[in-house]
């Protein structure tokens, strides 16, 4: 039965090549754009080098102090808050604390380099799984001594010391300070805000006063649980800790800070408010955009399909005359349409594979590596199904209501 439908579908496709082209063009391009978009979102959201343990990590990037009168002061929390309060938590196995990246300048051989510096604690190297090209990370003792040591990325090494030259043991100067290189790691894309930097330094070398008892400064934290099952417990313990933080001074009276899953830690900044993480809002916006984007191609496809189906009125008339029910016919046409959309889907996948390959190759966004993984393909297949179903239902319904006599007479 299905084989028959398939045969008919292929035969119909070959009959009117121009229409087939239009349908396939619409489907494949719509899917390509959706898949590339999904690959981007996926790239941002999923665990990747060096942040490989996202399924059992919580992220802290926002300290929001408020008062009715003085407005709000929101931004990344301070080292003091993360070290003193969050550091006292029991559930996390490790707590990585790192500053946001700061741009610094260095001038070498009449060339200007912008080096983004990140100050971290030692747990940073355990929570993030960096691949070391050479050397090793700094340890607790070196941080305590405020040793002027640093770990740099491959890119930084290549532009400062020369391509492929070993750097461990050498000295690098930036922002008018000199540091001894003790390790070189693979590059991190700038989209990974918690891990990105060109150069990593012990937090004790920070020129900012890391002991200041202000609650807002420019640090972030990653809380690593022993297993994914502990995440909820860790969240509630974090809230307990936050509730015990004294709201200092007269300026503010409310204080919000959350340990979130990776994506929620971003949506909270963009769309969140107080206790609301904003992740629901984000899904709503994304699906609305996708829906609006798919609306036009769907209407277009409905139009074309209606024309095509009406062209086959004689076939329909004959089948009806021989006793085929409306249901069978509708099913047949929807199946045919889904076969068509799947063809378009395959082309769309190939196209998006090409585009993603191009984006990765051309280094449009430095160090980003987009992939099409199972989830994205699944999404593509799902889109195909919805697409094929939606654009097939109306024409099939119109067709099935054709009267036998009119259908036969039309030819």
């Amino acid at each position, binding site marked *: 039965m299905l084989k028959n439908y398939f045969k008919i579908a292929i035969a119909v496709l070959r009959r009117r090549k*121009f*229409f087939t*082209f*239009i349908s396939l*063009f*619409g489907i494949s*391009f*719509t899917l390509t*754009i959706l898949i590339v978009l999904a690959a981007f979102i996926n790239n941002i959201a999923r665990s990747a080098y060096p942040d490989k343990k996202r399924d059992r990590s919580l992220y802290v990037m926002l300290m929001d102090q408020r008062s009715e009168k003085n407005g709000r002061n929101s931004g990344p929390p301070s080292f003091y808050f993360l070290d003193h309060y969050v550091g006292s938590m029991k559930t996390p196995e490790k707590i990585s604390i790192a500053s946001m990246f*700061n*741009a*610094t*300048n260095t*001038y070498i051989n*009449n*060339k*200007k380099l*912008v080096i983004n*510096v990140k100050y971290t604690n030692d747990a940073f190297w355990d929570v993030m799984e960096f691949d070391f090209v050479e050397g090793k990370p700094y340890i607790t003792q070196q941080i305590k001594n405020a040793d002027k040591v640093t770990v740099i990325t491959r890119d930084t090494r290549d532009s400062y010391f020369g391509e492929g030259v070993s750097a461990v043991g050498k000295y690098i100067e930036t*922002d*008018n300070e000199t540091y001894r290189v003790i390790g070189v790691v693979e590059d991190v894309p700038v989209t990974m805000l918690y891990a990105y930097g060109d150069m990593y330094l012990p937090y004790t070398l920070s*020129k*900012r*006063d890391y002991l*200041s008892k202000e609650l807002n400064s420019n640090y972030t934290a990653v809380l690593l649980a022993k297993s994914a099952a502990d995440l909820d417990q860790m969240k509630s313990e974090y809230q307990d800790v936050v509730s015990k933080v004294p709201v200092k001074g007269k300026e503010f009276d409310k204080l919000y800070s959350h340990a979130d899953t990776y994506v929620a830690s971003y949506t909270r900044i963009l769309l969140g408010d107080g206790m609301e993480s904003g992740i629901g809002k984000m899904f709503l916006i994304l699906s609305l955009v996708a829906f609006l*984007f798919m*609306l*036009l*191609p769907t*209407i*277009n*496809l*409905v*139009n*074309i399909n*209606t*024309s095509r189906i009406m*062209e086959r009125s004689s076939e329909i008339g004959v089948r009806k005359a021989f006793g085929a029910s409306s249901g069978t016919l509708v099913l047949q046409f929807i199946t045919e349409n889904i076969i068509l959309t799947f063809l378009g889907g395959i082309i769309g996948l190939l196209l998006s594979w090409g585009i993603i390959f191009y984006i990765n190759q051309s280094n449009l966004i430095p160090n980003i590596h987009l992939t099409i993984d199972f989830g994205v393909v699944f999404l593509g297949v799902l889109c195909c199904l919805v697409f094929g179903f939606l654009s097939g239902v109306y024409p099939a319904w*119109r067709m099935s209501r054709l009267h036998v006599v009119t259908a036969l007479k039309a030819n």
Partner: protein
Amino acid sequence: MIRHLFKMIWNKKKQNMLLMVEMLASFMVVFAVFTLLVYNYQNYRREMGFESDNVWVINFNNSENIASLDTILMFREAIRNQLKSMPEIKAVSYSSANVPFSMSTHNGTLDHNKQGISSVNRYTGEDSYDDVLDLELKEGRWFTKADFGLKDNAVVINSALRERLFGTGPAVGQYIGDVSGDERRNKIVGVVKDTKFKGDFQAVEYDMFHRADTGSYRYLSQLIVKVIPGASTDFEGRLHKTMSSAIKNANVEIEHLSEKRVVRNNLSLVPMIILLIVAGFLIINVALGLFGVLWYNISKRRGEIGLRRAVGASGVSISKQLVGEALVLSTLSLIIGSFFAIQFPLLHLFDLPSGVYIMAWLLSLLFIYLLVMLCAFYPGRQAAAINPAVALHEE
């Protein structure tokens, strides 16, 4: 003729309904795109109002450890003098963090005559701020040393704010409330031309410039300097060294306004380009679809067309009729579309000037008509070429 066309469309209303929905949806997409394009283009055409070439920004975030205000003032003065003595530097000014093309904004509501004017940008600079950025004064003067220590704050506003506050009346010498709501009076000493500090695509905004007073030096952590054309990297290195040895406990970073401008513009350009690509693809899609459906419809009407040819209609009149039908159909959907489009300026959605919507509306009408004509033209020509004998024979 038109009545006849309407009748033909009405007879096939079910089939035409879908076509109309498609045209309506495309009209809305095109309208959205044109609104954005017209808006950005209008902003782009306005003058920058200041000069960003050869201007560098020195960020030295943080000097939390310095204790007394006097020390800070002396310290700042020393740095300024040191920089001024460099032959490559033409002018120097401390500035608040919202330097041109930065992501940082300081704004608030300005109370004036009991009415609040929201989103007034607030910039803080020194007496030489206008020399560094080449601001163009339209009335009055920029700050001078004489403004120091007076009872009232000296402020400079831009033309847009001037017009909003005083219309055509006198502005210089008038008093306005403070953005932060404190009670000290602000006296206007000058009016500058509107500037586009937020990139080439910035809309007109209200700006207010404050003279850096002794208290503000605690948080001013940016310096803007005008350098001579062709200042070398070597000089920049020396400047960096000078700054970082002067301010021991700070990260020093030097940025060029010309580079910041590119980055800032990309924030507007990249979404626009992505939108154009997506919309372009949608339009191609729709065009192909329309073309296909019209072609198919016409090929189904061979008998009718053959008959008309046989009783004497010319080929031109046949193709005119078919294109006309398509145009009437699109007019119907454009009327519905215009009804939705008109809501944007009426309900003040998105806060854009009405002129932008009207321009975008006209452009989208033109665009859809052209698109439909283009799609109907070829099928119309095909129909005109129908040989009556052949067509009627088939029938």
